[in-house]
C-alpha cells in the first residue's frame, strides 16, 4: 500500500482537481448563497434594488403631490393595483406570446445570417474593409424608412414584423462577428497546424474561441435591437402583438393598463439582456 504519492502529479491523478460544487446542486447552491450574503455582491444587490424602490417612491410622491387627478400620469400604486390586471385580460397573454415567438424567430434568423456572413467576411482578408464600411453605412441609416417597402412585400402580419426585427438585429451581430474573426492572430492557428490540426481544428479550436467574446457582445446588442425592430413594426402598423395592444390601450385612454404593459415590455427586455450578459460572462470567464 502506498501512503504518499510519489509526485504531485500522481497525487493529482488520484484525487483529481479540486472542484467547486456546481451552482445547481444543493451543496453548491448553499455555498454560493453563503458567499453572496457575506460578500460585496450582496451590498451591490441591495443598493440596486433600494435605488429602484426609492425611485418608485419618488415617482409616487410626485404624481400624488403635483399631478393628482391627472389622467396621463397615474401614481405607481395605481399602476400596480389596477394596471397589472391587464396581464390577465382577454387577448393580452396571447399578444405577449405572439411577440415573444416572432421575436424569437427574428433573433434566430438574425443570428444565423449575422454569424455566417460575418464569419465569411472576417475570414476573407480583402472583404473585411469593404464589409466594415458597408455595414457601418447600413447601420447609420434610419431603417424605419424602409418599413413601408417591407410591408409592400410581406403585408401587415408576422412576416413584416420578423423581417423588420431581422434588419435591426443582423448588422450588429454581423459587424462584431466579422471583426472578431478578422482579428484572430496568426499565432494560434499556426500552433494548431504545427500540432497536426486541419482547418476544422483551426476553426473550431482557435478562430471561434478567439472571436467568441466579440461575437457574444454582438449578440447582446443584436438581441436588443432585434426586439426594438419587432416592437416598432407592431407599434407602426400591426393588428396583433404587444405593440398593437399598447397602441390600443393608449387610444382608449386606459392609462394604468398602458403603463403596466409598457413596464412589462421593459421587464422582458431587461430579462433578455440579463440572460445574454450571464451567458457572455460564463463563456468568457477565462478573461478574468
Amino acid at each position, binding site marked *: 500500500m502506498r501512503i504518499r504519492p*510519489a*509526485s*504531485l*502529479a500522481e497525487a*493529482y*491523478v488520484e484525487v483529481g*482537481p*479540486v472542484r467547486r460544487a456546481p451552482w445547481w446542486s444543493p451543496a453548491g447552491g448553499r455555498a454560493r448563497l453563503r458567499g453572496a450574503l457575506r460578500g460585496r455582491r450582496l451590498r451591490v444587490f441591495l443598493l440596486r434594488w433600494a435605488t429602484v424602490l426609492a425611485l418608485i417612491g419618488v415617482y409616487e410622491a410626485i404624481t400624488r403631490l403635483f399631478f393628482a387627478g391627472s389622467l396621463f400620469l397615474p401614481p405607481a400604486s395605481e399602476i400596480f393595483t389596477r394596471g397589472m390586471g391587464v396581464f390577465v385580460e382577454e387577448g393580452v397573454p396571447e399578444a405577449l406570446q405572439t411577440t415573444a415567438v416572432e421575436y424569437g424567430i427574428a433573433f434566430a434568423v438574425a443570428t444565423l445570417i449575422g454569424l455566417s456572413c460575418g464569419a465569411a467576411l472576417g475570414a476573407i482578408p480583402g472583404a473585411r474593409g469593404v464589409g466594415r464600411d458597408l455595414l457601418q453605412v447600413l447601420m447609420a441609416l434610419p431603417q424605419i424608412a424602409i418599413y413601408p417597402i417591407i410591408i409592400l412585400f410581406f403585408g401587415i402580419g408576422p412576416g413584416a414584423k420578423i423581417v423588420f426585427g431581422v434588419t435591426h438585429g443582423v448588422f450588429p451581430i454581423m459587424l462584431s462577428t466579422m471583426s472578431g474573426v478578422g482579428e484572430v492572430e496568426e*499565432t*494560434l492557428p*499556426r*500552433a*494548431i*497546424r*504545427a*500540432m*497536426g*490540426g486541419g482547418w476544422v*481544428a483551426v476553426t473550431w*479550436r*482557435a478562430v471561434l*474561441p478567439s472571436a*467568441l467574446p466579440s461575437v457574444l457582445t454582438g449578440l447582446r446588442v443584436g438581441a436588443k435591437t432585434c426586439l426594438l425592430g419587432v416592437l416598432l413594426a407592431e407599434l407602426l402598423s400591426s393588428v396583433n402583438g404587444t405593440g398593437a395592444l399598447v397602441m390600443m390601450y393608449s387610444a382608449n385612454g386606459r392609462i394604468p393598463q398602458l403603463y403596466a404593459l409598457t413596464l412589462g415590455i421593459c421587464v422582458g427586455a431587461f430579462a433578455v439582456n440579463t440572460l445574454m450578459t450571464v451567458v457572455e460572462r460564463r463563456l*468568457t470567464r*477565462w*478573461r*478574468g
Partner: protein
Amino acid sequence: MSLFHPTGPRVGSLLSGSIRQAAMTVARRDHGTPSESDGAPASTVVEARTSGPSAAPSLGPSFRSSEVIRVEHLAVSYRRSDGAEVRAVEDVSFSVREGEFVTLIGPSGCGKTSLLRVMGGLLRPAAGQVYVNDVLVKGPMPDAIAYVFQDFALFPWRTARANVEIALQLKRVPRGERRRRALDALDMVGLAEVADRFPRELSGGMQQRLAVARALVSNCGILLLDEPFGALDEQTRLVLGVQLSQLLESAGRTIVFVTHSLQEAVFLSDRILVLSHQPCRIKKTVEVPLPRPRGPDQVKSPAGQRIEAELFQLLYRESLV
C-alpha cells in the same frame, strides 16, 4: 512513471536544485564526432549509449550518425505590405544528426524563426528543401516534430493542463491518457501546482515553461525550440536547459534551438550555427567539444570561454554591419 525519462531516475521539478546539482546528473550525450581533446574516448560514449536499456543493441554507429534533418539551399522570402519582396534567408544548408543539439544564433531579425518555421513545415520556402527522416517536408509533421514558438502560442481560454493536452487531443489520444501525460509534462517543468490556472495567471517564465511542456508531451523525436527560455533569468534558464537536454537525452531526441544567450548556447549545444544578418546565411559553424556532463566548470573553463569569446566576436561584427 514518467514517459520522458524511462531509463533515468525521476528528475522532479525542473526548478529544483542548483545548477551544479542539475548539471551533475546530466547523462552523457552522444557527440557523434567526439573531439580528441575532450578527454573522453569515443568507446566510452558508445558503451554508455548501448548499455542503457533504452538503446537497442542493434543500433550501430551508422545509425547514430544518420541525419535526421537535412536542410538544402534553403531560401525564404517575405512579401512586404508595399509589395516588395524581401529575402530573409538565403542559401542555407546544414544537417542535424540523430540526438544532436544544434543551436542557431544570430542578430535579432536575421531569420532564425523563419528558418525554424520552414523546418517545421509551417512556411513554404522560396527555394531549396528540408528533409526530415529522409522525407521531404511539405507541411507540418506532428508525429515527428514538436515546436515551441517564440511567442508561446498559448490558448488563453484553456487552463495550463488543457494547453498541454491540446497537443494530444489533436492526435486523438484518449482522455485518460491525455490527462496523465499532460500532468507528467507539467510536473517536468515545475508547473504541476498551477495545472488549473489560465495562462494570464502565470508569469512570463511560467508561460514559457508551459509552452515547453506542450512540446514535450507529444514525445516527438525532433524538437524545434524558438528561444524557449528567453523570458527567464540566466540561472534558471541554464538549469532548465540542462534538465531539458537530460530529459531528451534519454529518449535520444534531436533538438534545434534558438537563443540569444551565448552562455546558454555553449552550455547546451553540440554545434552552434552562427547566422548573418539580411539575408540570413550560415556565417560559421562552431563545434562545442566540451565533455559532458557539463557544469559551470566546463563553461567557465578556458575552452568554454574561448568558444564564447569567438561567438561574441562573430556576432559583434555582424551587428555592426
